[in-house]
């Protein structure tokens, strides 16, 4: 399962760069489901629609995970803007996720 999500594209002076992410999950595993929910909340609060998210189910696309160097699920890879960063786990550590996404100091 690959799901691609786009923000609404609303212009925001604070966050004008589009963040491109890939979230690797395992079907409806409990941590995967939680990771999706946590990431949705962070995107809504901090990215203001300026993001592109691809959700990849490794059960359906195992080769994709291998190719991308993913070892565990759930894992979030920030692909753009550089540098590339990866967060593993259910993304309940919000500050860690924000740091990885480059939104330093925005955590509330």
């Amino acid at each position, binding site marked *: 399962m690959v799901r691609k999500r786009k923000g609404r594209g609303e212009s925001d002076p604070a966050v004008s760069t589009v963040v491109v992410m890939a979230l690797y999950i395992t079907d409806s*595993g409990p941590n995967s489901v939680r990771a999706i929910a946590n990431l949705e909340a962070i995107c809504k609060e901090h990215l203001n629609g300026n993001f592109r998210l691809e959700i990849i189910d490794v*059960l359906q696309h195992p080769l994709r995970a291998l190719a991308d160097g993913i070892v565990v699920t759930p894992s979030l890879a920030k692909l753009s803007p550089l540098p590339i960063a990866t*967060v*593993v786990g259910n993304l309940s550590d919000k500050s860690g996720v924000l740091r990885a996404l480059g939104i330093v100091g925005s955590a509330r």
Partner: protein
Amino acid sequence: MNSALPQLNAAPSGTGVERDFQKAILRLVKGGPERQAIEAGQIDAIIDPASGNSILLPEARRALIERRVGFRSLIGLAFDWYWEQDEDYRFVSHRGATDDADGIAEEGIIGKALWDLPIDNMSEADWRTHRQQLEWRVVFRDLEIRRADRGGEVRYVSISGEPVFDDRNHFKGYRGITRDITERKQAEALVQQSQRFDRAVLDALGTPIAVLDRVGSVLSANHAWRDFATKHGGVGTGVAAGANYLAVCDDAGGTDQVDGMAIAAGIRQVIGGERALFRYDYACDSPTARTWLALSVTRMPGNGNASAVVLCEDITERKRGELLLGLELAVARCLANATTAASALQSVIRVICETQGWDCGRYFRLDQSAGVLRCEQSWGVSGAVVEEFLEKSRGMVFRPGAGLAGRVCQSGQPLWIIDGTRGTAVSPTALAPETGEYDACVFPVTTDEKVIGVLAFSAGHVREPDDRMLQAVRSIGGQLGGFLLRQEAADSLRRSEMRFRVLNDLTSDWYWEQDSNFRFTQVVGCSALGTAEILGMTHWELPNVVADEGWAEHKSQLAARWSFCDFEFATLHPDGKRAYYSICGEPVYDAAGIFTGYCGTGVDITRRKRAEIALRESEARLRAALAARSSD
């Protein structure tokens, strides 16, 4: 999607084993963050770097198994069989989602295409269409097929399918589901059968019936309704199924506007639940006749779209009967209030004209002595034409058998002239003086089956009479005849009394009445004894009455209730002269035969008596003189 899940590598069950498993998988993970996440329980699966397979951690495995079981349970509710076909549309798998898999599966359909199965409700064209869908690789839904199962029972199934493609987008076949819809189809058949039955019952009813929905559209109407619309005009009678009854009523114009508004308002109240029943009687006029309709609207809650039932009946006959009964009563009222035959005839002719819509009416009296009918009374609506017509009728005389009135007089039967001449053996020219340009209704006025006159009515159009109308005119003719006969008798009696009174006035000076004690209760006429002064007195108590032996005999006659005649008595005047009176009387009895007194007459005979006395005195003097002379 579940079926597409790859085989999961999973940890063996058992707490100790799980710990060993965790140690093993931790060895696969080299990075610190991954290890920390695993230890924090935030990881669902680890990717085997050698095979790419996902190794589910115990918690995630349990969650996925539970979800899969739940999903299977849910899809088991949605369909009965799951099937797959190859690229030639041949079944390669067919599994029942329920334990009771007695559908197509038992036929041994593996290797066969759908059209190879014994299905009896699909035509060649249907199959061509279906195969075209498959060729186009489109999803098809709810293809309903019918077949007989092994027991010979007819079963219906609904099939839906979607095309399947491999990773390189090559068509691999179809997969889909099948649902047994036999019960639903049987229920639908029962509903259709019930609807057909309802329809047949509705059509069998002779009353025109239509069913309206909540906005007033006609959902259905029976045969009688449609038939009614072809024969009757009026508001709402021509509304066919699918049209809006309320809109037709709202749009009614001309003379139908008021009825249309009233009917629409009533129906809206019924549909809105403000009332359970609405009834409305109304008249529809056509160039040839007036029709009365009775509309009845009944609320019909809880029946799907149906909100109200409209019944429409032709009540013209009933209404005519009521009107004719009212006419008979009106005629009876006219006769009761009339004081003379002329006023009775005028009012009766008028009320008949007004209630029946006739322009004018005439009464021809049969003059028995002359043997002719004479136009005696008439009444007509205002208008020069009618007045001229009635003017020409005055003085018109018919012999029995001549003209319309004469024919009715002779036959004693009503006669109707419709459209000038139709139904008569009389030439149009012969009719012209009687009817002019009018239709006419002529009927006899009778008493004891004997014709004493004829009533003739005329109008621009006279409706052909029915039995009830003929009954009404006979009744009216009889009522009027009876009244005229009684009136004639009363007039004759009045004339007789008048003559008697004149004669009585010539033969007596006063009339008196007494009670059972012989006391005056009434004195009429020029009594020399006075009037008011003597009331309450007897004859022998009168002022200055001269008492003599005659009174004793008179009192004995009264006590015996005898009639008496020329009883004479005298009163003494202040000047010393006497006045003389003669009375006659007879006893009076009430209806029960009880004596109530006397009545009689009195005559002042003073002059005659004085003359007699003077004559007697003169004779006496003459005799005395003769006697003296002879003695001399």
